[in-house]
């Protein structure tokens, strides 16, 4: 329920730039996913917004007002930590009630109990309310940690890989729950994940970080279909985008050094001949490992393909992406 603006935000730890000159506008009610490999500065960005770190330069505005001088409590944000950080001396119930008992909110106990129950039901931990926080499995701790954020109605939710320790089924369920809650409340949410499905299905905006710098910010589709660099293109897509010499298939646009091929950019049945190596049957998809002039290419084929290792298939690119030697996108010229 708030708009967040990061303006030239920079945070260094000693010499290490964790966040470098990041400018970003998060509209009210947006679900922003931050992507980036480990160490890219995702957690640091959330901590800066929360007020747990003081930036070296730049500004953070919530609803148009700079919050740099404010304590975390005053900023009215809720955060799910990457390390769950449940209060170990409290029960699950008291952990969930903790934010509601804060001097800022001070709900009465009956209202707290009701709210805690609701949230516990949503997160499927109602049967664990009496447990000590230390007597939980990793996934249960993670859900309590999400719950501690969800009991409140803060201006902004910050979530750092909140579903990372859950099994596939629970993860899918909670993905839907979180998205539903966010939409119902019209909440503004900054969300860190490495999971492509989470990024693609939940986000209204995706920001890609590279060693502390924001390299692209856009809708999930833009990030996937129209990446500004190889680096961004590699963040999404399973199997990962194949990067090959640009002239492997003949003509190439000016300045292109590499061609990027996602499975949907590869037409099987015509073009250059490649040899089938490994075939990975993952159940819902079957991956084909091909070799072409010594380059490995991974693509998808029909789930019940009859191909076997050693077969030869012809492939050709279809509306591929091109990048220059530095990795920046080159228009395909068509």
């Amino acid at each position, binding site marked *: 329920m708030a708009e967040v603006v990061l303006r030239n935000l920079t945070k260094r730890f000693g010499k290490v730039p964790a966040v470098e000159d990041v400018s970003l506008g998060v509209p009210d009610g947006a679900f922003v996913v931050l992507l980036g490999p480990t160490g890219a500065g995702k957690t640091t960005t959330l901590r800066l917004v*929360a*007020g*747990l770190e003081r930036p070296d330069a730049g500004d953070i505005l919530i609803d148009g007002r700079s919050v740099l001088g404010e*304590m*975390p*409590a005053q900023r009215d*944000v*809720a*955060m799910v*930590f*990457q*390390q*769950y*950080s*449940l*209060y*170990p*001396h409290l029960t699950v119930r008291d952990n969930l009630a*903790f*934010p509601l008992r*804060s*001097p*800022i*909110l001070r709900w009465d106990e009956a209202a707290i109990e009701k709210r805690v129950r609701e949230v516990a039901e949503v997160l499927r931990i109602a049967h664990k309310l009496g447990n000590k*926080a*230390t007597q*939980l499995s*990793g996934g249960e*701790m993670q859900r309590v940690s999400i719950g*501690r954020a969800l009991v409140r109605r803060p201006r902004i939710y910050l979530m750092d890989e909140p579903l990372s*320790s859950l099994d596939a089924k629970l993860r899918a369920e909670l993905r839907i729950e979180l998205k539903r809650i966010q939409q119902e409340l019209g909440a503004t949410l900054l969300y860190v994940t490495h999971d492509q499905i989470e990024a693609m299905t939940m986000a209204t905006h995706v920001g890609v970080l590279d060693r502390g710098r924001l390299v692209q910010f856009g809708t999930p589709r833009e990030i996937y279909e129209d990446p500004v660099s190889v680096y961004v293109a590699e963040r999404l897509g399973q199997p990962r985008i194949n990067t090959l010499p640009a002239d492997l298939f003949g003509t190439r646009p000016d300045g292109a050094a590499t061609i990027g091929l996602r499975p949907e950019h590869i037409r099987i049945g015509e073009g250059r001949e490649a040899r089938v190596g490994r075939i990975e049957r993952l159940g819902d998809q079957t991956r084909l490992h091909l070799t072409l002039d010594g380059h490995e290419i991974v693509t998808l084929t029909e789930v019940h393909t009859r191909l076997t290792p050693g077969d030869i298939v012809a492939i050709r690119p279809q509306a591929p992406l091109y990048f220059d030697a530095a990795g920046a996108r080159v228009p395909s010229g068509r």
Partner: protein
Amino acid sequence: MSAHSITEPSATTKWISGGLVVAYAVVTLIPLLWIVATGFKTPADAISYPPKVVFDPTIEGYVNLFTTRTRVTPEQLESLPPPEGIAEEIVRSYGMVIAGPSRFGERFMNSVVIGFGSTFLSVFLGTLAAYAFSRFKIPLSDDLLFFILSTRMMPPIAVAIPIFLMYRQLGLSDTHLGMILLYTAVNISLAVWLLKGFIDEIPREYEEAALIDGYTRFQAFYKVVLPQAATGIASTAIFCLIFAWNEYAFAVLLTSGTAQTAPPFIPTIIGVGGQDWPAVAAGATLFLLPVLIFTVLLRKHLLRGITFGAVRK
């Protein structure tokens, strides 16, 4: 095998180690038992040779500990009304009457006030200082910590004379406040170091979570850090109390009347009525109790150092 975790000792191991502990306890407790027993002996039994293991218990020692007595002539004794209570009866059997209460009660209370007062102050200041050292960037914090430790390097008694003179100037000699400050000064370095170790172990994430959950830093400290530092606080308090409770040298030097603690007082009991070992033993027995009770009361916290583990490492 039962549902034991592999790190849990087997039943045999537990029995053997349990047996060893009991044997050790018996050996070390015999002198204590002897003191307790002596407290219930008559003066004659207390010094009889060979020592009496089986004897008729009496509370004479305790009566002598808590009273002052005067000798009276047999005629005066005859003329008194019949004795009231067992204490009076015991005293009269020695041809004496109770003249009034002894100073033991007062001295014991002095020990309680000074011992617990300085323990509270040491732990209170120590916790705050340890938290600051653990969480904030303090310039030269390592040097400061070492300085705090170094205050304990010289045996306190080496500075006894300067302290004696200083206390006299400041009017702190023989006052409760003076003794509380002195014992706190000695204990504080231990308290800071011990507690810093414990607080360092508490992940910052808990406080950060509390800050975000709407609490101020002090509230986060109070609601989240303190409960988890309970083990450290309890053990530090016990160490501080043991020192302040048992301290003898400064107590002799700096206290003589109003603020005299039990340790310098107990040996003087023996002079009051000749070889009154049972009274000394009774005083020593009572003197042992507060630390024992305090430790037992805090035991729950000492054994509960298992609160870690809700942060994913």
